[in-house]
């Protein structure tokens, strides 16, 4: 009897175990799906983000000209030459274009201080014929103004001024690529029926185009370009790397090749770099504002690319140092020993043997730092990047960069600016892609030269 009941219990236990096992495996399956879903969600987020941006770069746009070009010119503006464009400006602008001369060439304040001065003194950087240069602003005749415009502006500048100031072009609404494709009827209906939109023209438009890259900023979204921001970004990043690369690599070499880690100062540097890597970027902005913009204003000229680049250099220094240290650590000791065995000094060993061997890794780390710097926005806002920069930036001028423009245009509630923000994002991502591609190519090339 006793054995039978044990056997029965055993069968019962086994059934319980089998059922329990099934449940345990089922639970495992469900959780595996959750883990899978987590990574798929990440993937989905990336796709959505990219699509959301690209979707806005191309689509239908309703544009209206307050004064169509045809009212003052029988040919499109693109076909006109400089003197014809200048002629239009003089004929169509209020007070024969004198206001434009004052605002964009002389400067309001400058003019108010020197009303009677001849134009040759007031207008800097433009060569004027002697008879025009001798006149004051009030004495200008239309034909004189036309000469000034021809000399001072490029045809592209004048075309833009005509569109913004005379034509008064306005983006009424723009639709995303998907809306334009799948909701065309509703868009046509809206354009036709909205009362205020008389004379609106609906056209397919790619917001990221060549003239977007090359033209200056304007107040009209459809004509605005990103040239100043692109140049600002490139200048800033160039100067940043020029400052940060030697400092970062130097620190890494010291910590990896010279430091024994025994001295308190060497340990301090090491700990400090780990801590700096975790400091929020906006804090660097405050540092830059107080030190580079304010305290060192004499050297950096205040809110300029120099200040921005120095701040950025401090920001990416930990990234460069940590990566360069990693690269130096990966250089096998045999290379150093061989160099010492040949009688090389410490510095000769470091500079001629270790550094070339570590260069691919160091460059990759530097480009990682550059990628961080080119997308970084917060410190530059604090430092005081400008929102509107019409002219090409120089090292000591006020500046803007691509991410700042994305920020400003995203905040801008006017129609069309969200789209040029999207176009700028695509441009920024392309620049980032180019950086990373360069990193990969550099790494390959160095590796080949080392193995050869």
């Amino acid at each position: 009897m006793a054995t039978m009941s044990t056997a029965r219990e055993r069968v019962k236990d086994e059934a319980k175990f089998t059922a329990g096992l099934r449940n345990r495996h089922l639970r495992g399956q469900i959780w595996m799906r959750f883990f899978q879903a987590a990574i798929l969600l990440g993937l989905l987020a990336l796709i959505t983000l990219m699509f959301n941006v690209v979707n806005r770069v191309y689509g239908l746009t309703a544009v209206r000209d307050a004064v169509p070009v045809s009212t003052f010119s029988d040919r499109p503006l693109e076909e006109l030459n400089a003197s014809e464009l200048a002629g239009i400006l003089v004929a169509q602008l209020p007070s024969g274009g004198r206001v434009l001369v004052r605002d964009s060439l002389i400067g309001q304040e400058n003019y108010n201080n020197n009303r009677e001065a001849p134009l040759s003194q007031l207008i800097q950087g433009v060569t004027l014929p002697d008879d025009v240069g001798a006149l004051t602003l009030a004495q200008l005749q239309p034909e004189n103004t036309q000469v000034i415009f021809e000399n001072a502006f490029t045809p592209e500048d004048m075309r833009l001024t005509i569109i913004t100031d005379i034509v008064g072009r306005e983006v009424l609404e723009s639709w995303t690529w998907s809306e334009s494709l799948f909701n065309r009827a509703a868009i046509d209906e809206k354009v036709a029926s909205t009362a205020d939109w008389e004379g609106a023209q609906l056209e397919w438009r790619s917001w990221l185009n060549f003239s977007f890259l090359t033209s200056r900023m304007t107040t009209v979204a459809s004509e605005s370009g990103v040239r100043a921001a692109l140049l600002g970004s490139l200048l800033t990043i160039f100067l940043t790397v020029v400052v940060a690369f030697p400092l970062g690599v130097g620190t890494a070499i010291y910590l990896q090749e010279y430091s024994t880690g025994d001295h308190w100062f060497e340990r301090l540097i090491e700990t400090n770099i780990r801590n700096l890597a975790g400091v929020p970027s906006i804090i660097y902005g405050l540092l830059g504002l107080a030190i580079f913009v304010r305290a060192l204003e004499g050297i950096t000229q205040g809110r300029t690319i120099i200040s921005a680049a120095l701040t950025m250099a401090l920001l990416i220094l930990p990234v460069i140092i940590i990566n360069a240290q990693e690269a130096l650590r990966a250089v096998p000791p045999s290379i150093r020993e061989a160099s010492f065995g040949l009688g090389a000094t410490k510095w000769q060993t470091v500079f001629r043997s270790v550094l070339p061997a570590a260069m691919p890794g160091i460059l990759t780390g530097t480009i990682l730092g550059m990628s961080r710097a080119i997308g970084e926005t917060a410190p530059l806002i604090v430092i005081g990047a400008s929102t509107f920069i019409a002219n090409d930036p120089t090292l000591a001028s006020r500046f803007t960069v691509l991410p700042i423009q994305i920020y400003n245009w995203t905040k801008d509630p006017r129609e069309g600016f969200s789209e040029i923000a999207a176009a700028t994002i695509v441009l920024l991502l392309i620049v980032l892609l180019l950086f990373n591609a360069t990193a990969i190519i550099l790494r390959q090339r160095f590796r080949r030269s080392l193995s050869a």
Partner: protein
Amino acid sequence: MKRYALNLHPNTFVRYQNRNLFSLYQWSTLKCLLNIVCDNTGLTPIHIRGQKQDMATTIEVKRKNGAIEAALANDASGRPRIEKRGRPFDDFMRYLLLACGTISVLTTLGIVWVLGSEALAFFTSVNDQGNVFSTVLGNLGNFLTGTQWQPGAGLFGIWPLLEATLMTSFMAMLVAVPLGLGAAVYLSEYASQRTRSTLKPVLEVLAGIPTVVYGYFAITFMTPLLQGVFGRDTVQFYNTASAGLVMGIMILPTIASMSEDALTAVPRALREASYGLGATKFETISKVVIPAGLSGILAAAIVGISRAVGETMIVALAAGAGPRFSFPPDFFVAAETMTGHIARISGGDLSYGSIDYQSLFAIGLALFIFTLLLNMLSRYVTNRFREAYQ
């Protein structure tokens, strides 16, 4: 007198039968040099043909800077000596490199000094009560406990800003920790080598996207989505939920990759032992692998919080402008975080030395201390609870 100029490794010198001989680096070099030295000093070269192990028994190698010169100069035998030639360029480069390293320390000092001095100026100048000490104390008390931030009225309580920061960070963690950990578990435990090599770069791309782009994403995608789901009446256009959710996506790759490192560091033997005891794959993961890698996962979460607290662009674009304190917290209304406030105020024309200008540094100081503590805590957790495996 015959002189030998040798290139010697500066950190090593050799002690031979209680006599300092010279510094060297490699055994082969040692043999050549020993021959020379023995010729010149009259020592018998007994140990030269030994193995490296012999070197250890007969020759003590010590690391000490500059000991060679001292030792050789004291050699009063009058015989030819081996001297290390001075290397001024090498020494110069060493100090130049050290100077590079000093820049990073100066950066930290600069941050502390700038934030500290401006914050102190802020605490001494607002609401002057005559006595410097009581002014600072009173202002500091108001700063840390006040629930109103109205510079116009002289009210500088950090809680409205801090609350928004905590709300967005909380929201971000709500997204990033489960998803990041889930992704890490999948990558390290389930995914094949091939899947892993395709999925990891995707996460890296996500990590490399500039934060201002995430801000754009929040305002053009997440906010309309939330408004669509919960209704426009409940969800304001600027809200902390949208900013927090997108911030979570931004932090996800950080947490995923740090956690994955922690999980892959757990040795295979632990998993095998668990399977041997009859555990299923999931039981192994949840009861063995994750507890074993917990220190790394915790550290990842803390780093994630620190990044969320310091993140600026997403909140500057999507969370709204204007400090607002609400209790209980409402995630669907606009609020301004500490970083968002700094960005907005400094974006305008700010005159140096004004109260507004100084108040930014006080917020910055709070932010700096907050993130510094989090980062130190993360390192402490990693070191304190790390399981050392062979």
